[in-house]
Structures are given as C-alpha cells and as structure tokens.
C-alpha cells in the first residue's frame, strides 16, 4: 500500500525526536573531551585501574551469574524437578528490587554489623570491596541470565530429546548433546546481556565497592567530588566501548544463531526424565541461591523495623517516622515515573508501528530505538547533563523524565514490535476488505491489539524509573528530589533504618504497580487468546 503523507510526516517527526533524545546526548558526551583528553587516558593510573577493575568484575560476575542462571533455567524448565515454580518465583525477585538493594541488604546481613556475620557467627567481616560486589552482582543479575536461558531451553522440542534417546543416547548424553547444546546460543546471549549490566552497574557498586575504583562509579565521583565534567565524560566514553561492542555482538551475532525454532511443529509431549544426580544437584544449588535471594528482602524489611542494626535488635517504628518525613521524595518519584512511563509507552508503540511499515530508512529508526539498550545509565546521565542543562529544559524535572523515558525506550519498543509481528498482515487486509480505511485500521485493529504492549511498556518504564539511581544522581534538581536519591544519601550516611523503611515503601510501590498493571491488562485488554 502506498505510504500516505500523514504516515510519512509522523515518520519524520519520530526520527527527529529519537535523534534529539537518543543520538544527540550520546554525541555530546563523545565530543566533549578533546582528542588530547582521550590520548591522555593511558597516563592516568586511576582510570586504568578503574578500567581494569570493571573488566575483571565483568568477567567474574558474568560467569557466576550466568552459571547460576543456567542452573535455575534448567531446574525451572524440567517438569520433574520438585519446587520448580517456587525456584522460578524466587529467581525473579531481584528483578523487582531497586538496583542498589542487593548491596544494601548484604551489608545488613554480611557486613561488619551483619546479622549473620556478626550476630550469628561472631565474625568481623568486611564485605566492602570486589568480593562483596561479586557476590551482590551474582545474585542481582541471576534473573536476567535465567530468563534468557530458560527461554531457549523451553523452546527445545521434547521430541528431539526423545529422538536422541531412541537413537541410543543415555539420559546424561541427551542433556549434554541435545538440551544444553541447543541452549548454547542462549547461554552466550545471556552472558553478553549480563556483562553489559555488570559493566553499567552503578547502584550496587556505589554502595558496596568501597575504595575499589570502577568506571561506572568513577564518573560520578569526578562530577560530584571535583566538578570535573570533562573527566566524567571521558570515563563514561571509556565505558561505552565495551558495552556497545557486547550489545552489537548479542544483537547481530548470537541472537541470529538461535536454532531452536527450526524444529517444526511445537509439541506438548513431556520431556524424558532428568538424571537424578543432575536433578537433585540443581535443587540443592537453587535452594541455596534461593535463600540468598530471600535474604535481600528479609534484610531490608527487617532493617526497617530494627532499632539499631547490629546493636539493639528490639523492634521500632521510628525509622518509618523518619522515612515519612521524606515521603515527598516518593511522590516526586511517582510523578517522574508516570511521565517517563507514558513517554516510553507512547513513543515505543508509535516507533514500532512505523518500523513495521514498508518505509525507507526504517532501519535507522529501529537502530535509534534499540540503541539506548547499549548505553550505561551513567553515560545517559552525563549525556543529558551536557545536552540539555544549558537549554530552557535545564533545571526542570523534564531532563530527568526524558532521560529515563528514552533510556527505557528499547523495552517498550521491542515489546510492541514483537506484538506487531504476531499480528498477521491478513488481519489488516480483512479489515480493509470489509470497508475500513487507514485510520479505522489503526483504531479498530492496531490500537486494541497493541494496548497490552502499551500498558506493559508503561509499567516496566515506570518501575525502572522510580527505582533508578544511575541517571537520577546526575540529573536530580533541588525541587524534585526523588526517593532513590534520598535512600542513597541515607545509606552513605549510615542512616540504615530510615533507608530500609523508604526502600520498603519503594518496594510496596513497585509491587502495587505490578498488581495494578495485571488487573488493568486483564480488564482492558480483550485478547485472551494471544498472550
């Protein structure tokens, strides 16, 4: 069908908006330091150290998180593993925690004043440093790895496993040569995604890394401590190199190598039994890791009700009073989150619709819509400071809103795109055939079918916006201090009780929005058939 002028105009408008809010800030970061600044990087011992440390953490945390994720993915996709639903739920929990919460909870549990280390075991443990960060990142990014690998494992057709058995493979050989072999691209993909997250992890690092320099935190120290904007830009530019590399490796190499889809018809037959050693081994590992995950929530919630952590274990509500004094910050988070969510949802669905049309240069639009996924939060934060602080937007909450909205754009965009691909072309043609013009097709067919994607994109963007720290710390304005910023300050000033109380409120807010999203989707969206 010929492209009508309205569609073309919208296309150009969307391109301009993405150019301004995705490409321009990134461009500003990269050109802010001079060539000489870039060339002087090798002379700065501190930066080389930070770069080396970031890479080391990337390697060890990625390996451990992916390995644990693989065990969880395996356990939760085999029907004969006991407790698999519980394990899946447990492994998802870190996904909903603010990005500093695992570190905070483990300080409470395993730190010098730790409930487990000091009060139960009587140890004088120091969790600050690379080993603490390793533990924290392993738990924090386990869900990412599990979800990706489980998606691939689930797609392995049970008939293939039966066929291998039928051809003479024993149950171990089946797992080795079929199930895990087919999951290899998924494992590789999970490693790349986790590696990006580890490199970009600001929240956990800023709390628990102590004096251990890392690229993600260095940018903030430069700006906050020394007002060194150029240094901050240099550091995030250094951080961008590996994340962009990993991102495109994942997108253009690994994700095209997933061959589980080639096996023809889906099948509902059960998988062959899991070898008992493997089964019970997985149950053991999952139970242990599950306890560690539970401690994240238990620690923070307990911290909110304990008089003086590590000294006076009596219960109190004092911290809640202190937290209630800062309740305004929570509402500021909600306001900013709602605006960011609305923008992510609307722009994501619109761009997905545009890239689904046969328009020239739609790949450019697609590229700009997925690119933020490759950018660390601190990079986006510095980018928006450089791009918009000197504009009329500077000093308003809108810089933060837009930064969060466009950083989360890939989630909304990819969800809507996937949804659009499920809608057969013939459905649009059927509507046209029955007399609907272009606008009616959009209103009657695409809007209702994409409504679910829109609501979910809003919810994900909202939740991530209210729990964000890596962008918030760069773009906070005095009039709009948000909850995560307050919590971070409290933790660094050892006001643990109130920090825990405010974090608990944030958690309640997160889970309430998930609940509201579910019920809204169930009530508003009338497509029970296509999930």
């Amino acid at each position, binding site marked *: 069908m010929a492209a009508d002028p309205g569609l073309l105009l919208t296309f150009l408008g969307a391109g301009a908006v993405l150019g301004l809010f995705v490409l321009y800030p990134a461009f500003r970061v990269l050109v802010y330091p001079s060539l000489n600044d870039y060339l002087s990087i090798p002379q700065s011992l501190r930066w080389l150290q930070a770069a080396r440390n970031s890479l080391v953490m990337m390697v060890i945390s990625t390996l451990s998180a992916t390995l644990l994720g693989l065990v969880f993915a395996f356990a939760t996709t085999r029907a004969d593993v006991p407790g698999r639903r519980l394990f899946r739920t447990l492994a998802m929990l870190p996904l909903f925690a603010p990005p500093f919460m695992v570190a905070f909870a483990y300080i409470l549990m395993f730190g010098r004043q730790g409930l487990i280390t000091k009060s139960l075991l009587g140890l004088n443990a120091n969790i600050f440093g690379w080993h603490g960060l390793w533990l924290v990142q392993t738990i924090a990014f386990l869900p990412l790895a599990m979800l990706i690998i489980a998606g691939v494992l689930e797609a392995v057709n049970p008939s293939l496993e039966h066929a291998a058995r039928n051809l003479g493979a024993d149950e171990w050989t089946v797992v080795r040569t079929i199930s895990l072999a087919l999951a290899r691209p998924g494992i590789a993909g999970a490693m790349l995604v986790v590696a990006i997250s580890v490199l970009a992890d600001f929240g956990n690092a800023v709390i628990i890394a102590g004096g251990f320099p890392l690229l993600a935190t260095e940018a903030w120290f430069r700006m906050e401590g020394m007002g060194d904007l150029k240094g901050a830009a240099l550091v995030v530019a250094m951080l961008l190199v590996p994340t962009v590399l990993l991102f495109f490796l994942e997108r253009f190499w690994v994700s095209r190598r997933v061959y589980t889809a080639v096996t023809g018809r889906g099948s509902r037959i059960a998988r062959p039994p899991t070898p008992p050693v493997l089964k019970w081994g997985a149950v053991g590992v999952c139970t242990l890791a599950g306890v560690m995950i539970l401690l994240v929530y238990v620690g923070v919630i307990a911290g909110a009700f304990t008089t003086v952590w590590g000294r006076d274990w009596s219960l109190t509500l004092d911290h809640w009073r202190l937290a209630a004094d800062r309740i305004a910050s929570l509402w500021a988070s909600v306001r900013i989150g709602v605006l960011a969510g609305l923008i992510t949802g609307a722009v994501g669905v619109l761009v997905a619709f545009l890239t689904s049309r046969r328009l020239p240069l739609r790949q450019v639009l697609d590229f700009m819509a997925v690119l933020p996924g490759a950018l660390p939060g601190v990079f986006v934060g510095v980018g928006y400071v450089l791009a918009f602080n000197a504009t009329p937007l500077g000093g308003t909450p809108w810089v933060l809103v837009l930064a969060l909205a466009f950083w989360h754009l890939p989630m909304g965009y990819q969800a809507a795109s996937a949804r659009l691909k499920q809608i057969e072309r*013939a459905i649009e043609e*059927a509507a046209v055939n029955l007399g609907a*013009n272009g606008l009616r097709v959009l209103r*009657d067919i695409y809007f209702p079918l994409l409504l679910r994607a829109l609501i979910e994109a809003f919810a994900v963007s909202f939740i991530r916006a209210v729990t964000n720290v890596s962008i918030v710390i760069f773009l906070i304005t005095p009039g709009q201090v948000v909850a995560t910023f307050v919590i971070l300050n409290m933790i660094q000033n050892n006001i643990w009780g109130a920090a825990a109380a405010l974090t608990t409120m944030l958690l309640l807010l997160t889970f309430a929005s998930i609940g509201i999203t579910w019920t809204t989707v169930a009530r508003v969206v*009338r*497509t029970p*058939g296509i999930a």
Partner: protein
Amino acid sequence: MNAQPHVRLRNVTKRFGSAIAVNDVSFDVAQSSFTTLLGPSGCGKTTILRMVAGFYRPDAGDIFLRDVRVTDIPPHRRNTAMVFQEYALFPHMNVAENVGYGLRMRRVPSPEAGPRIAQVLELVGLSGHELKFPHQLSGGQQQRVALARALVVEPEVLLLDEPLSNLDAKLRVRVRTEIRQLQQQLRKTALYVTHDQEEALAISDRIAVMDRGRILQSGTPLEIYHRPANRFVADFVGLANFVDARVVAAGRVEARGVTLAITDGAPSGPVTLLLRPEAIRLHRQPPAHAANVLGGRIAVASFLGTLARYWVDVNGMRWTIDVPSPGDQLLSGEVFVEIPPDRIHILKE
C-alpha cells in the same frame, strides 16, 4: 445465469519486481456462478483474486464489476468480501463483533445489523457462539466465522483464497460441500482459489487452470477433466497416462508398433494420447468383441477401498489403471488391457 459477466478481467498484467505474476489475462466470471482459479503455487491465481479485491493494482489492463471499472477503486470501497486462507479473524473481537465489523464500516444501524448477524450465523450453523472469541473456536468454526463475516455484507462477489487449506482432510470435504450449498442457496457470485484439483472439480461451475501467470484452459469441470486442452492441464487435473502416437489413418493411431482405434478426429501426424486410469479396463481372459486389446503384466497393485489401482507394463510403457469396486482378490500377473476407442483423448499441441 445472466448473459453479462459479473467480473471481467481485460488484459491484466501484474509484476512483482522482475517476476511476472499475472501475464495478460482476460477472463470472465458469470453472474451467480462458482468459478475456481486452479493451479500450482506461484501460478498467479491468488494475485488475480487480490487484484479483484483491490489489494494489488494491475500494472496493465482493467478489472470490471459488471459495467463499473474498479481498477482504481481502493480495497475498502469495493464490495468484494474475502475469506482469507488464514481466516484473519480479529483476535480481540468476539464472533458477533467479527461478523458485524463490515456492517459497522457500512454504517448499518444496530437494530438492522443485529438480526443480520444472527441470520448469517444461523446460516453457517454458529448460532449461540456469538460471544466466543476466535481462539475459543475449532478450526472449522473459525472458518465458518470467516465465511459469515464475508457473507453478511452481501458482497457483490465473494472471494475465497484457499479457505480450506487449514482444515483436516475429512472436514475439508464437509466444509466445501457447505460452502457450495450456501453459494447456490444465496445465488452469490463466487471466485475461489485452490491448488487442489479434486476440490476444484467438486465445487465449481467453471474452472480456470493457470500456470506461470496465464490461464491455460477454462471450462466446466467435466470439460477440463475429459477434454483437457494440453498436457499440463491433463496432468494437473486428475491422473493421466500419456502415449506418444501417430495418426496413421482416419480413426487409427499407431503407438510403439501397435495400432489402436480411436473416435477422436485428428489430422495425421504425431499426437499425444491421453488415457485416464479409469478409462482402461483390465481382464484376466481376452475379452470377446472388444477393440484395442493389448497384453500386459501387473507390476504393482494398490488397494484404495472403492477402487484398486494397478501399475501395468504394456508394450514397454507403464500405465496407471483404476478398477472400480475390486472384489476380494486383486489381480496379478499377466492380464489383458482394453481401451475403448471413445475413451482415448487426443491432445492437440
């Protein structure tokens, strides 16, 4: 049947890039007839259907609905409701909303639309399913909703694009009979696309056999089957034995040193004979008073229920021969093959 054709294509050509999907096709669909475009995949049959619906614009030529040239009318302004191969039911609308969608687009007020929806659902046997969603229906039921959705707008021409290909074999036969009955009952003009020759023979008033963007022959199912215009049509529709032969005299052909009597007239020279499997008879003993009897040997026998199919070696050729209502024993070994002269069709190409 009305004298004026309901749908007319005049010298229609459609290219996709460098490939010619439809090559200078002219073709009529008679009023109230059931016309089928039959051909292998990629022959251009669906492209013709979609040009009638308005999804593709011809690169050359014109399409008329009665006297009206519709070539430039956009698809949503044509009254050519289509049943899609994948049904294309709106997943977010229930059965009544799906069926009522075309009426809504035509601004039919609901006091009128309601009874019309009910009536057409009754017609396709889906009364009581109004509030179900497409995913709650079986494949056959979804197919009927798609049919009802097209019928309810009282289309000028009903277009059907391989509507049965997603159904299992038994259901396919049942639904095709239902579609045919509905079409006759409503006296709708229908244009149907399929690659299944048996389906085309069973359902159509007229068949147009297509290959590589052209219509090779159009005619009634009987004409297409018994008097195919060329070897492609003969081979695509039904099973065929081809015999290279020469017309040696009026009523006589010679094939591989054997002379056969024929009733088909043809000028002398090389010809291809078409022998349908059921046109040939098999005997254990040489039949008396029969023309065209040859000796043969059964190579393979296959029991198909209502008939037995034999592959018989005759004079260096292997023929497929169908024998109806086989008894308790299949034939084997040496047999006698009889070809009634009036069942030999000469392909003139």
